[in-house]
């Protein structure tokens, strides 16, 4: 079976929509859903063959760029990790495509939207099934491009255009580090084999060469530390980790299905997926893992705290994504990639559910500020129930999938050291708090006067229901076993001490938020009064955004102006005029000699002959 259609199907959909079916709205929607559906079917078939026989087809590759020294190909690598991730991406993707047919129906750029979605699907699947670092980088950039196009979908809005540019630039900064990391790995892989030709970027070979090189001492540990850090730089850019997280909240300018697909389930997970894919490199350097774990925890806490003061429903979810990603990165940092991936998969389901739920709410009420919403439970029962289930899963209560995957991470944190465990528990508490706030404000309490809000149409609620089923059931699919407990130790103690502590923390968080928001439905953010200066700090996003804006406005632009003036002064005025003016002066010098007197002409001629003779003599002399 030609498995290239996993990538080709959505790509063909993208091309046909972009070129031909732009005017036929429903046709393009069908093309997009069909394209992704085909890849979903293929991946499902692979998944079933994985479950039954465990046999997986060989990685397939066609050479993209072949020169002496570099041999890059584009292909498909099938293993447990990529198939599961592929399932998440294509499965959730198809559901979101179906959802967006309803959500975007009255939007003029309908088919353009589906074209961009298909492009995104191709890029994401490209990363998931990539066989080498260069292919990952290639589709990494394409994913960045797709998110740029989708965030800036409503380009006539200023905020959307700026948000798109900001997202792309932040991704680009991340890619800067990623590329350098890849270059370093490529260069170092040659050293391990002792020959320049042996350099490679293929995962399979790297997984074999790098540990060997490290063991045999030909490659020093610090090289892995630097390479790992550079690669983490790319991961941070894509998965909105601490220094490069500023673009995620602004990315909410895009349509909600975009936020659901890209900024919850798939794209932001690409970073964590890449770390899982080249974990053989990260494992080689201890301090690298420490740094990664620290950055993860820092992002988790930062995200959770920023979400507290947020009043826009989508921004709260965005910050919660950031914080959950922080937890996954921390899990990776604690050398338990399986826990990270497990949480990533479950998170993909319930976060997409929450975003789609928010989408239904926005579609019905056209409002995003939680203080303007209220009492939707009666109006939109299905969405509310689904949103509630998503919230419980995110918070990590027992029956829901979130509980199992988060508990894995907490277990891993506890085993490493108490510090990580306390940090993770704090994040869980904050998550429970702001999610509770969200639910109490939006769905409970008396109804705010916002016209007749009706339940979202079936085409929107169906994906929501499917996702809510998964966010409930995902915990029972033994995903860790499926992921192949690479690290060997089995996590059995589901109901050990960790489970009780985390459940208690979540319940406390929920009641605290109920106490603040559920009872008397404040019209303004009560935390401002309560937290005072700390609140203001959270509201201003720790001044990181202002720091970046300061850099762009006050450092980069003036420096560019300086360069421009220097260029104007020295190069254009200097060289340009030197040539122009210089020739002119030379000319006028000659002019003065034309006095009309024959004899001065002769003397000038004689002088020139002498000069030529002298130059010729010198030149001949030189030879």
């Amino acid at each position: 079976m030609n498995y290239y259609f996993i990538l080709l199907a959505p790509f063909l959909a993208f091309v046909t929509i972009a070129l031909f079916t732009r005017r036929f709205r429903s046709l393009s929607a069908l093309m997009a859903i069909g394209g992704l559906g085909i890849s979903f079917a293929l991946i499902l078939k692979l998944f079933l063959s994985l479950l039954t026989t465990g046999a997986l087809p060989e990685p397939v590759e066609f050479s993209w760029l072949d020169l002496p020294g570099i041999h890059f190909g584009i292909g498909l690598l099938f293993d447990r990790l990529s198939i599961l991730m592929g399932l998440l991406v294509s499965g959730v993707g198809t559901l979101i495509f179906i959802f967006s047919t309803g959500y975007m129906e009255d939007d003029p750029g309908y088919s353009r939207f589906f074209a961009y979605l298909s492009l995104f699907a191709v890029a994401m699947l490209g990363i998931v099934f990539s066989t080498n670092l260069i292919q990952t980088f290639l589709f990494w950039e394409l994913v960045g491009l797709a998110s740029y196009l989708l965030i800036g979908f409503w380009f006539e809005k200023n905020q959307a255009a700026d948000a798109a540019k900001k997202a792309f630039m932040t991704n680009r900064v991340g890619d800067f580090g990623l590329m350098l990391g890849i270059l370093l790995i490529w260069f170092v892989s040659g050293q391990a084999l002792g020959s320049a030709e042996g350099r490679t970027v293929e995962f399979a070979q790297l997984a074999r060469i790098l540990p060997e090189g490290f063991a045999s001492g030909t490659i020093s540990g610090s090289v892995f530390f630097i390479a790992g850090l550079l690669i983490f730089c790319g991961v941070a850019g894509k998965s909105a980790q601490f220094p490069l997280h500023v673009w995620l909240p602004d990315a909410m300018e895009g349509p909600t299905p975009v936020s659901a697909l890209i900024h919850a389930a798939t794209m932001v997970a690409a970073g964590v997926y890449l770390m899982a894919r080249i974990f053989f490199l990260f494992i080689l350097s201890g301090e690298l893992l420490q740094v990664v774990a620290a950055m993860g925890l820092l992002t988790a806490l930062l995200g959770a705290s920023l979400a507290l003061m947020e009043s826009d429903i989508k921004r709260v979810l965005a910050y919660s994504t950031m914080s959950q990603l922080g937890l996954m990165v921390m899990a990776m940092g604690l050398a338990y990639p399986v826990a990270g991936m497990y949480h990533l998969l479950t998170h993909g389901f319930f976060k997409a559910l929450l975003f789609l739920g928010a989408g239904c709410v926005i579609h019905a009420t056209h409002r995003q500020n939680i203080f303007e919403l209220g009492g939707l439970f009666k109006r939109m029962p299905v969405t509310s129930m689904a949103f509630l289930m998503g919230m419980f899963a995110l918070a990590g209560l027992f029956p829901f999938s979130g509980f199992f995957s988060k508990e894995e991470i907490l277990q891993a944190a506890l085993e490493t050291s108490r510090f990580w465990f306390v940090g993770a528990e704090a994040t869980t508490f904050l998550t429970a708090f702001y999610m509770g706030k969200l639910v109490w404000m939006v769905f409970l309490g008396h109804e705010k006067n916002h016209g007749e809000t009706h339940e979202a149409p079936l085409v929107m609620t169906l994906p929501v229901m499917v996702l809510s089923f998964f966010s409930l059931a995902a915990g029972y699919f033994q995903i860790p076993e499926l992921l192949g407990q690479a690290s060997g130790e089995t996590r059995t103690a589901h109901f050990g001490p960790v489970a009780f502590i985390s459940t208690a923390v979540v319940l406390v968080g929920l009641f605290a938020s109920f106490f603040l928001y559920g009872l008397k439905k404040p019209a303004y953010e009560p935390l401002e009064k309560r937290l005072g200066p700390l609140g203001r700090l959270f509201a201003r996003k720790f001044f990181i955004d202002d720091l970046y804006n300061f850099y762009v406005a006050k450092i980069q632009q003036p420096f560019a102006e300086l360069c421009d003036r220097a260029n104007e002064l020295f190069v254009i005025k200097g060289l340009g005029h030197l040539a122009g003016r210089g020739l002119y002066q030379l000319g006028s010098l000659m002019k003065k000699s034309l006095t009309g007197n024959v004899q001065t002409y002769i003397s000038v001629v004689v002088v020139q002959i002498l000069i030529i003779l002298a130059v010729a003599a010198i030149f001949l002399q030189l030879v």
Partner: protein
Amino acid sequence: MISESHYLVLAFLLFAIGLFGALTRRNLILILLSIEIMFNAIHLIFVTFSRTWNNLDGQVAALFSMAVAAAEVAVGLAIAILLFRSRKTIDASQFNSLKD
């Protein structure tokens, strides 16, 4: 024995004098005269080399050059006369109509 470089030095000196005369003299006719001196310097060189390499071509060249020099003087003087007739003077510096 006189080597050829003696003659060369002499010829160059003569040439320099002729050049100096051509540049400083005011009288057109005497400019032509100085040019004649330069011509003679060249003839001297021709003859000198003809003797050193024992080849008469040099002398033939000298002869031809003399003829040409004579022709040149004839035409030069004719022009000088014309100039004199038009400007009533043969002072070289008067004829600077070229200067715009």
